[in-house]
């Protein structure tokens, strides 16, 4: 089919950080972190299943992950987890209609009440908390 038939913007248009502000960044960070966490979760289940291989098998596998790369990866997972959780709470509140503003006569120039500072603060906090958690995680893992 001719791509112009539908003229959908596609995945590229979905990301689009420049045009639609921090809300759009939160949107795709949420997606990426969700997918990332799912990936990690599956890997984690597999990782723990190595316990069934007994002490040797477990230690063997543990050695594979206790590397600098492994720790960096875990740091990332911590960041993803914190962002996804905090932003997830924000999103759930929003989806429930909380903090999205009240309907009112709009006056030109129209500033959409749903794109308000509460939610922006929520997004920034998610990012900042994720960053803090990552630093803390690094301190724990590399600090030994």
């Amino acid at each position, binding site marked *: 089919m*001719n791509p*112009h*038939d*539908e*003229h*959908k*913007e*596609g*995945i590229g*248009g*979905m990301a*689009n950080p*420049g*045009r*639609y*502000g921090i*809300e*759009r960044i939160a*949107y*795709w960070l*949420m997606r990426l972190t969700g997918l990332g966490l799912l990936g990690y979760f599956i890997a984690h289940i597999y990782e723990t299943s190595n316990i069934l291989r007994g002490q040797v098998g477990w230690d063997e596998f543990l050695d594979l992950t206790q590397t600098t790369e492994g720790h960096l990866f875990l740091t990332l997972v911590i960041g993803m987890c914190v962002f996804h959780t905090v932003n997830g709470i924000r*999103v759930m509140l*929003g*989806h*429930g*209609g*909380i903090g*999205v*503003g009240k*309907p*009112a*006569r*709009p*006056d*030109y120039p*129209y*500033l*959409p*009440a*749903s*794109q308000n500072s509460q*939610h922006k603060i929520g997004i920034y906090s998610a990012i900042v908390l994720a960053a803090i958690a990552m630093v803390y995680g690094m301190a724990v893992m590399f600090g030994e």
Partner: protein
Amino acid sequence: MAQTPSIAEEKTSSAVSSSKSITLRIARFNPQKDSDTSFMEFKVPVEKWTTVLEAILDVKKHFDHSVAVRYSCRQATCGSCGMVINGKPRLACFTKISELNSDTVTVEPMHNFPIIRDLAVRFDRLFNSHHKVKPYLIRDDTDVSSDTKEILQSPEELEQFIQFSNCIKCGLCNSACPTMATDSSFVGPQALAQAYRYVADSRDKGKDNRLKIIDESHGIWRCHFAGSCSQVCPKGVDPAMGIQLLRGYMLGFRS
């Protein structure tokens, strides 16, 4: 009697002094003929109040009669002229060249709508989605008899939905929405905002009916509160708010 001078004459006589010109890049594409979009460039004179639509019509008038573009009211009430201007969905008649702060203005057809030709896109899907959410008052006594009076409604009750009533069906929101960018079955912010408009009307009794309609796999749940719809809406409708409030009913936060 002193006749009034021609307005057109006066316009041209003053235009010379103050006008500057910009480059207008228009996306050209006819799916029946061309294999891909190309851009044509035109130098057009602009005043501080010249709108993008006026610039396009200037091109159509003087340089190339064949530019396909939809327009009518030229005052941001009919919803015809949505297009992507310098990368963002906007109304051409409601965007002044001067506010774009750029010597080059690029106009493209709206995303997420099939192209008919050049800047004109098909709206069938938007109209169908709008139709689907039953955008009318649902109640038993919609017909009047000789002694019918109004259904009382306080200004506060009116305030609950009037903002969503401002929708001109321009489709900019659907063009900006990230879900729409890949999901061609999504009902979209335009229709969802209209579902809310009627649900929130104190005269309406069709809430459950409508909530059921949008509760499907490509319904309201495909909105992730990205908010782009509200950011581009030229009429202050704020579909993102309407959608979340609607979902509030479904999650039991509101009744």
